[in-house]
């Protein structure tokens, strides 16, 4: 094929894709067979490291979230490939059901838990939503990037609201079955996760990989999901209709929250 003998893959530790990373072995094997190259997979648990590796040609293709892609295209030479569309991908703001917060505007003067810096659904998009709602992030409310502790913080009412991935709402209820929660805002349709190739990778190869993935999309997704974990991704599928414009909202969001991607 037009691709090098080994293709190096990495992921950026994107929210909600952990199961997939774990199951990457079968996917890699299946894809390698289809593409005709050996697939080497590096589970990179930090987006900075993964983006950096791609910039310096230490990896050929990474699976990135929208936030990472927006950053990468601003900083370095990358090629867009196919994407993955997931159900329940977006941001939601959750509060306790008995709270008197009903809209984002009610968050004025409150404490809000977010996820970790740079996370699409846990930082960039929720911040953008707050700004859109007319709040000044520095003056009108307190946001905390709490990562793993965001659930506990909300459950214990240390914060008044949590802005995080839509799937976190279900998790929250799982964690605190007695509690009652209410979603006060949800993001619109989000850009999708995307495979990104390094700038220097042969375009023919990129096209070839795209082709092979789309040709075999069903069975490759099966390979990712594997038997047991299946239900969580029933609605995930490969897509090849991504456009640069789709990610402009993220770039804009970065601008609005005061972290311009120049």
């Amino acid at each position, binding site marked *: 094929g037009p691709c090098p003998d080994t293709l190096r893959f990495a992921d950026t530790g994107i929210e909600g894709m952990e199961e997939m990373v774990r199951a990457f072995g079968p996917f890699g094997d299946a894809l390698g067979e289809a593409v005709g190259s050996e697939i080497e997979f590096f589970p990179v648990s930090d987006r900075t490291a993964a983006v950096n590796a791609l910039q310096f040609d230490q990896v050929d293709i990474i699976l990135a979230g929208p936030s990472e892609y927006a950053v990468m295209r601003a900083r370095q030479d990358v090629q867009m490939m196919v994407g993955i569309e997931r159900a329940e991908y977006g941001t939601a703001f959750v509060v306790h059901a008995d709270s008197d917060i009903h809209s984002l505007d009610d968050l004025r003067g409150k404490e809000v838990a977010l996820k970790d810096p*740079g996370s699409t659904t846990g930082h960039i998009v929720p911040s953008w939503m707050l700004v859109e709602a007319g709040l000044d992030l520095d003056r009108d409310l307190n946001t905390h990037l*709490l990562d793993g*502790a965001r659930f506990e913080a909300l459950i214990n009412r*240390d914060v008044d609201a949590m802005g995080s991935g839509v799937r976190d709402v279900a998790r929250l209820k799982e964690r605190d079955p007695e509690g009652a929660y209410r979603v006060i805002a949800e993001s619109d349709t989000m850009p999708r996760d995307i495979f990104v190739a390094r700038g220097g990778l042969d375009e023919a190869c990129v096209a070839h990989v795209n082709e092979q993935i789309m040709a075999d999309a069903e069975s490759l997704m099966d390979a990712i999901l594997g038997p047991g974990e299946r239900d969580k991704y029933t609605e995930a599928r490969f897509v090849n209709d991504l456009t640069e414009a789709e990610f402009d909202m993220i770039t804009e969001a970065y601008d609005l929250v005061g972290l311009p991607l120049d």
Partner: protein
Amino acid sequence: MSTVDQRVAALAPPRFTSPSVFSWVILVGFAAFFIQGFLSADVTLARMVQGFGNLGTFFAQAWPPDTSRLTPIAKAMLETVNMALVGVTFGVILSLPIALLCSSNTSPNGFVRWLSRMVVATLRTVPELVWALIFVVAVGLGPLAGILAIIMDTIGFCARFFSERIEEISPGPSEALSSTGSGRLSVIFGAIIPESMASLTATSLYGVEKAIRSAVVLGLVGAGGIGVELSTAMRMFRYDQALTIILVILVVVIGFEQVSSAIRRRVL
């Protein structure tokens, strides 16, 4: 050589004593792991040479350091030092008795020693993130949870190193004190602590430095501090800001090291 010579020469210990079973097990085990690890590293020179060329480009992204946020960074640093000092102080205070229970020469008995070593090992093994979660649940977001997490971390580290040092001090002075009929505690404070003072101070001050360096945990519990600044800068690919933050931390780390060696000079 005379016969006397030969008789005497026969007393010389052999050059090589065959290692004990224990040594063999350790050696073979180490070799096995080491070789596997080494092979996995897969060192290819060509790749490295190319890579080192890239480093220039990489560092160029961080240079010059961006000092525009120096004031909030300094403020975050200060907060971190405050919390670290409180956490480490309590951690050290708790570590000392635990270390005494862990040391073969001060522990009341083998079981207590074993148990306290287990506890210390556990405190050390539980990751910071888990401590953060536990204390967020227990006491809520904020500095208190961070300080508690630092305390746990400090105990795991300090108790282990204190106990190691306590085991190494020369037994003479403590024997002398205990042969005056004094109690365990008096011997400990009269001989063992003074003898290991230099090391205890240095380890404790290293503890502060360590707490500052791993200040991310403070961010996880919503206590802010320099760790959040750094991880945000890194995650946002603002390497120039990150460099500034690292330099600020470096200044503080070196400061604590200077204090540490100044104190040691006086005690040693």
